[in-house]
């Protein structure tokens, strides 16, 4: 029997995967062919989607960008013998894009069926929890601390220190909250993981609950990710039915329950304190820190707040050990990072690699440059609050400290490429406009500053002469300074990054000549 693997990832479906699966089923029925269609997660090779894989004696052979009208011709060739076809890309795991990656978090991507607990267990699932159940709470915390894992959401705070703080806090009720409000443009790793490997996140949260002494977890998912919400809810039910959630999750009488909460279209709710307000049912207004959420978080109780990928890293750290995990990465950036190539890129997709590869390797070796074929003008790294990086800085290694040294940040690992059709003066204006639209309104630099920022950039871009340009530029620099140092959270505090990096590296887009820029 012929076994086909077709992703059910929402983006694969947005480019036709469902239609392709239906076409294969219909054509096979017409030919009375016995085929088995397994709907899997996506490999993250999005430029090839819909990617159809077939079992062959050598491994899975793949066919790229399949459309329903090509299904008949595919079934004409001997797929099970890696038959030759125009759409063939050969054995999928031999593709350099995939072969050179270090897939730890996404080890199962494209291989297993998202809601199959059986697949999950067969591919190493729940070994982390099994190991954790044999350790004391403090030993689990020590393992995470030792691994060097840092928060993957953007702030890169050492995870183990957070765990220790929550562990040591005294309270009747503690919480684990997963921040799945992945709102950064260019980021889709959380979405892929939740849609494609939901049990990994559930296992990570369960271990976290065990370690810090929390019996309840919440996953706060943005409403734009409706398919992820549906998959998570089903996976939670399946896990509960098999005793992986509920009254006794680790054979020690430890209770853990998870509830999925849906966001409502507010970018700011990706900020952890705003997210907690939202889970509590209020406006997503940022809280001042201290108190830290680790001590007074959700409903005023000690709360471990982590991004999806931070929590999903935990099962592997527990099953393979902290020492093994530390083998990946460089300096103080340890483990792997799920980089995401997006925007005007020839080969857009997910690249999981240890920290330390350069932006050039990511953009050219993996990404293959722009989709338009024109030279890469810039890359925005780390979402809408990340800096625009010019090609002259592409040799910077992707590690938290090296990027900070050039005034950039890794954020959630999304890289958006653009060519010269994108006007960075307009993108600077957009950054301010986005901040104005999404500001929670609590602090003045962000609430008022963003609107004034839009106005100043408009005046700068329309300035009739050099004197006026200089005047507006000085105003903008001053405003950015106020926002950066005076805002309560990263939204107002980092909106100046894309604005000032665009102005610094692409003065011509602001009408500034090099001489004016230097002044």
């Amino acid at each position: 029997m012929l076994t086909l693997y077709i992703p059910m990832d929402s983006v694969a479906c947005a480019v036709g995967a469902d239609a392709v699966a239906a076409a294969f089923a219909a054509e096979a029925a017409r030919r009375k062919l016995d085929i088995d269609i397994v709907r899997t997660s996506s490999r993250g090779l999005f430029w090839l989607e819909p990617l159809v894989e077939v079992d062959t004696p050598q491994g899975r052979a793949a066919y790229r960008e399949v459309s329903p009208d090509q299904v008949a011709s595919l079934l004409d060739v001997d797929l099970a013998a890696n038959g030759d076809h125009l759409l063939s890309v050969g054995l999928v795991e031999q593709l350099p894009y995939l072969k050179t990656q270090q897939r730890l978090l996404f080890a199962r991507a494209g291989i297993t069926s998202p809601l199959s607990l059986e697949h999950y267990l067969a591919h190493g699932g729940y070994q982390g929890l099994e190991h954790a159940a044999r350790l004391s709470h403090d030993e689990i915390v020590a393992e995470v601390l030792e691994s060097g894992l840092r928060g993957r959401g953007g702030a890169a705070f050492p995870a183990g220190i957070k765990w220790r703080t929550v562990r040591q806090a005294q309270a009747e009720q503690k919480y684990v909250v997963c921040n799945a409000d992945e709102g950064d443009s260019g980021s889709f790793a959380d979405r892929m993981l939740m849609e494609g490997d939901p049990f990994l996140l559930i296992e990570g949260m369960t271990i976290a609950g065990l370690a810090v002494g929390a019996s309840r977890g919440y996953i706060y998912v943005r409403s734009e990710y409706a398919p992820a919400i549906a998959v998570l809810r089903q996976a939670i039910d399946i896990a509960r039915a098999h005793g992986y959630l509920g009254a006794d999750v680790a054979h020690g009488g430890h209770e853990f329950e998870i509830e999925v909460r849906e966001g409502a279209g507010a970018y700011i709710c990706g900020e952890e304190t705003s997210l907690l307000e939202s889970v509590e049912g209020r406006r997503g207004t940022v809280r001042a820190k201290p108190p830290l959420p680790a001590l007074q978080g959700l409903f005023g109780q000690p709360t471990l707040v982590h991004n999806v990928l931070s929590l999903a890293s935990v099962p592997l750290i527990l099953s393979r050990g902290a020492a093994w995990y530390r083998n990946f990465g460089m300096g103080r950036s340890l483990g792997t990072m799920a980089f995401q190539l997006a925007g005007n890129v020839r080969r857009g997709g997910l690249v999981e690699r240890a920290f330390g590869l350069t932006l050039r390797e990511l953009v050219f070796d993996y990404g293959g440059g722009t989709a338009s074929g024109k030279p890469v003008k810039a890359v925005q790294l780390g979402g809408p609050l990340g800096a625009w990086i010019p090609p002259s800085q592409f040799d910077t290694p992707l590690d938290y400290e090296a990027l900070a040294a050039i005034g950039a940040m890794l954020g959630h690992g999304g890289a958006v490429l653009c060519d010269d059709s994108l006007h960075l003066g307009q993108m600077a204006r957009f950054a301010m406009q986005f901040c104005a639209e999404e500001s929670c309104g609590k602090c003045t630099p962000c609430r008022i500053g963003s609107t004034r920022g839009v106005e100043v950039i408009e005046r700068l871009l329309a300035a009739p002469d050099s004197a006026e340009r200089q005047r507006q530029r000085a105003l903008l620099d001053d405003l950015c300074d106020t926002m950066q140092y005076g805002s309560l959270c990263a939204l107002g505090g980092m909106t100046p990054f894309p604005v000032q990096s665009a102005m610094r590296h692409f003065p011509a887009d602001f009408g500034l000549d090099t001489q004016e820029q230097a002044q």
Partner: protein
Amino acid sequence: MNAQQQETLQQLLQQYRDLPGGLLPLLHAVQDALGHIPADAIPAIARAMNQSQAEVHGVIGFYHDFRTSPPAAHSLRLCRAEACQSMGSEALAAQLRTQLGVEDHGHTADGQLELRPVYCLGACACAPALQLDGQLHARVTPEKLSALLAACGKEAKC
């Protein structure tokens, strides 16, 4: 609200009133069931959740998703974030302006289709992307957009 809507609301209030931090899930459930959050539902929601009407209004107003007026027959959410902008989403917005005369946050003259900007649908590797009546479409070209709109014109729901 008519009697049936009243009854739906009462059921949802019962379901969510004791859920910790249940206001957002309740508002989502009301909107899913009734299409929007009717103004005359707010006093009952406030009472059930033990909050003031001002607080409920405040929450509805804060989040882009919640609406207090009925939706159009078709809802188009065009992604306007950086990755989609780098692949021509502004040109798609311009196409909608010329082809249908519809602006951001606006609707077509016949009220059948509304356009809302959205910032990231997670399809950034296959930009530009949009959501039409809840369905995600990626690698959208001007021709594909025209075809999607044409399908909308022909069917009640596409």
